[in-house]
């Protein structure tokens, strides 16, 4: 498979076509916006946190396929986690996307591990991590996250 085909693997394209937990929910407790100024990715994150647990995680906005797929996968694997469990996943995802770590994957990240191929496209790493940073900002009560 060419690098390009790896980047736009079927899993990713499928999530992009049918994103999970997409759309602004009726109610939420936490919200943040994620902006990737350079390429124009913009992600809205809506969380319902109850008793320190992420009851629901939704996202909206217009983004590239990598960003959409990553957000779709992220919301799936985040739902139901406690905030501290989620933070651990975030750290693992950052490691997964760290250009200096070669091909490490984490069982807990499930399908999101397929995003490891993004590392071959350094300018796209921010597309994959944006939604995670936005959830982190929402949990902290910050209005926006950038991927800087």
């Amino acid at each position, binding site marked *: 498979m*060419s*690098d*390009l085909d790896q*980047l*736009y693997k079927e899993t990713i*394209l499928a999530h*992009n076509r049918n994103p999970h937990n997409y759309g602004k929910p009726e109610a939420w407790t936490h919200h943040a916006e994620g902006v990737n100024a*350079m*390429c*124009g*990715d*913009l992600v809205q994150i809506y969380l319902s946190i109850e008793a320190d647990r992420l009851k629901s995680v939704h996202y909206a906005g*217009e*983004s*590239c*396929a*990598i*960003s*959409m797929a990553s957000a779709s996968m992220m919301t799936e694997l985040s739902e139901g986690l406690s905030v501290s469990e989620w933070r651990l996943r975030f750290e693992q995802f950052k490691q997964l996307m760290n250009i200096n770590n070669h091909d490490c994957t984490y069982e807990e990240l499930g399908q999101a591990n397929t995003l490891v191929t993004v590392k071959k*496209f350094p*300018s*796209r790493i921010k*597309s994959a991590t944006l939604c995670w940073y936005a959830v982190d900002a929402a949990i902290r009560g910050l209005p926006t996250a950038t991927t800087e």
Partner: protein
Amino acid sequence: MLEEQFPGLRTKVHGKPLVYLDNAATAQRPQVVLDAINDYYQNHNANIHRGVHSLSESATELYEQARVSMAQLINAPSEKDLIFVRGCTEGVNLVAQTFVRERVKAGDEILISHLEHHSNIVPWQILCEQTGAVLKVIPMNQEGELVLDDLDQLINNKTCFMSVVHVSNSLGTINPIKELVKAAHDKGVPVLVDGAQAAPHIKVDVQDLNCDFYTVSGHKMYGPTGSGVLYGKTEHLAAMPPYHGGGEMISKVTFDSTTYNAVPAKFEAGTPNIAGGIGLGAAAEFLLSIGLDRIAARDQHLKAYTEAALNQVAGLRIIGNAAKKSPVFSFVIDGIHAHDIGTIIDHHGVAIRTGHHCTMPIFQYFNLAGTCRASLSFYNTEQDVDVLIESLNKAIAMFA
């Protein structure tokens, strides 16, 4: 063949020959520009305006000759009306912080247009915050053209200054600058024109436009990065307070008081980008030698060819269809985000830009986060356009 004079075009990208369609971001430079830079560093490497020694004299001559060439390119009445700047961004900020800041009062209006690049928006927002002035905007329509119907109200007795783009970097729209300047002058309002995208495409004649200021980025007109000029009418430049303080812009310094030098030195504090200025002169000579008429003709040919070709692509929509436009195409494709298109076609050697192109308000108007932008130069070929179309079709197939 003109394109052979551009070494940057011979690059390979992912093993494919580069198809460079990101000229509105920055152009490739012809060998003559690189030669001018190298010649300075190798044979005339000295500071300018400062030494009695021969090296410094010849460096100064080269630098000042570049000012003459740039004056000729934009038909300024005298090369002394040209200030070397880093680029358009510095040009706009300089005018905002000197000429305009001095004359603006709280409640005054600064008029720009909806087509502006961030570099012709943010400096005015900063100035408004500093002074209590108010930013006003000439609206645009679905074609990406300015709507001048209410110009008479927009330019009113509170209007202190107008700053407008000559050619839009995102949509290619060529604005009716002469008309805008006339309307502003009728009400006594001075005008700055952002010529970043005009200089590489159009015969610019600042005397005919009759604008008060005009600014140009060297790197977009085939010159070096970090170079550019700001043209100003003689009487404005003479009356304006200085911008940066430093060497060269003074004629006498004591701790009690300082006398400023004559224009343009007054605005050129410190050691400038000497190699950049000299390279810019070579770029101006290069453009003059080709002839802006020939470039404009080539532009129109490439524009027609590209427009027809893009319109053949399924699901592709061109944003911006001004009657007068330069060969710049913003477009979106159904179901594929611009960023993905950019990545995919880069793998076929095609360099375009994706995103908001530093003109977020334009895309807020169109309710888009961004577009793909293919911006052409005279050195681009029909074959370049064919490769673009092929690669777009591959992206579409991938997402189908």
